[in-house]
């Protein structure tokens, strides 16, 4: 603890900084949880990482860049499906959320026995990973829901890291950037 004596003779003490408690807690948690992470350099194949990137984004096996960009025409249908999924999902979700939002707002429905359980239920739904919901949906309405650009990647990636996956990733990139620009523009307009 730092103590200073001023010219007047009064002693001033620098207060203990609480941040060290937080740092200590983070360090202890890090040590505990790093026990769960195996670290075995003998399983590393670091040399494969650049090869994978090369196979994803640079044409190989005698293909040229024309073939590479020609592959984008295979992305039309899956991309359309992905857009349909996200548009339809957002639409259904916002329609369902509209009444629920009113029911769970504590300042509109004064009855706590209605708003608190609904809020809890919403928290419950939020904590279910989306993949589990997809599994449930496949079981109830069929495999049609699992389509789109994700399926292209899933189909191609498990066998080998081929060029189709790279093309799919680039398609996702372009689409997401366009969607972000559009939604930012629309949000600014609405405000």
């Amino acid at each position, binding site marked *: 603890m730092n103590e200073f004596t001023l010219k007047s003779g009064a002693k001033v003490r620098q207060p203990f900084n609480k*941040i060290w408690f*937080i740092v200590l807690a*983070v360090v202890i*948690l*890090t040590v505990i*949880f*790093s*026990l*769960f*992470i*195996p*670290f*075995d350099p003998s*399983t*590393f*194949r*670091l040399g*494969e*990482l650049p090869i*994978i*990137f090369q196979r994803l984004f640079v044409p190989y096996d005698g293909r040229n860049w024309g073939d590479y960009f020609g592959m984008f025409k295979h992305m039309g249908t899956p991309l*359309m*499906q992905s857009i*349909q999924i996200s*548009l*339809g999902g957002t*639409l259904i979700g916002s329609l369902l959320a509209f009444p629920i939002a009113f029911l769970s707002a504590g300042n509109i429905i004064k009855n706590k026995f209605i708003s608190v359980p609904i809020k809890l239920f919403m*928290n*419950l739904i*939020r*904590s*279910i*990973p*989306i*993949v*589990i919901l997809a*599994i*449930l949906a496949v*079981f*109830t*309405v*069929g*495999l*049609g*829901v699992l*389509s789109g650009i994700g399926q292209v*990647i899933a189909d191609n*990636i498990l066998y080998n*890291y081929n060029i189709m*996956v790279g093309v799919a*990733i680039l398609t*996702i*990139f372009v689409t*997401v*950037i366009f969607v*972000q620009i559009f939604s930012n523009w629309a949000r600014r307009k609405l405000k």
Partner: protein
Amino acid sequence: MRPVSSDVQVLYGKQPRKWIVNTLFAIILFGIIIFTFMGSTINWTRVGNLGETLGDMFSRIFNTNWELFFGIGTFDFDQGIVYLVLETFAIGFLGTLIGAILAIPFGFLGAESLVGKKVAKISEVILLIIRVFPEIILAIILVKGFGMNALSGMLTIGLHSIGMLGKLFSEAIDNMDRSSFEALDSVGANIWQKIRYGILPNILPDLSSITLYRLDINVRAASILGLVSAGGIGSILTIASSMWSWELLGTILLAVIIMVMIVDFISSYLRKKLV
């Protein structure tokens, strides 16, 4: 003097005619709905059996296998769901830590008020690319390089977090109150003193609240990384879903929901304390 009612009528006449815009909006919305359901290949016979399926699901999903849940009895502890959930949390926690540490330089480089417009734009583009790169694909690539274990999951979460954390960090640095920084400048503090007493106390609450929010997201993300065998609870999830074993799925779901809710609660409590 004209009667009041004609004034009202004039005002009504001046009112902008919104019905054209509204009809157009409704038509567009309707078009989107039709477009959305055009391409879907829903298995309608299965939808017809929905009640039966859901009844079967709900009757079996709450049959929690407690021995598997805690990893006792016929199961070892490191096969139990609790162990896997702790591993998932470890992936999320350490990944967030790595991401936060790596995002700090990006945060400073992306702050327009510190480095100027050009550098800020460049680092913004880099952060956008990191954000857009799908998490699962990054996991698949890293699994190839680091082996099928929790280490690659942790690295995935860490690298992917940089995108969002870096952006929010740079916004926090941009919005910070610069008066204390200038005051230190005027009394002749050196650069480290300026960072220590001028910048850090200003941005640390924001930075930690952003990181806690990201922890919340990352723990959810870590629970599906196992789908590509990058550690965590996702691998047993794949097994459960491919076997259609509702009992196993219910057990996993219970554990995941409890973990996510606890993390959610702690992180929102700490964030409320910080701000």
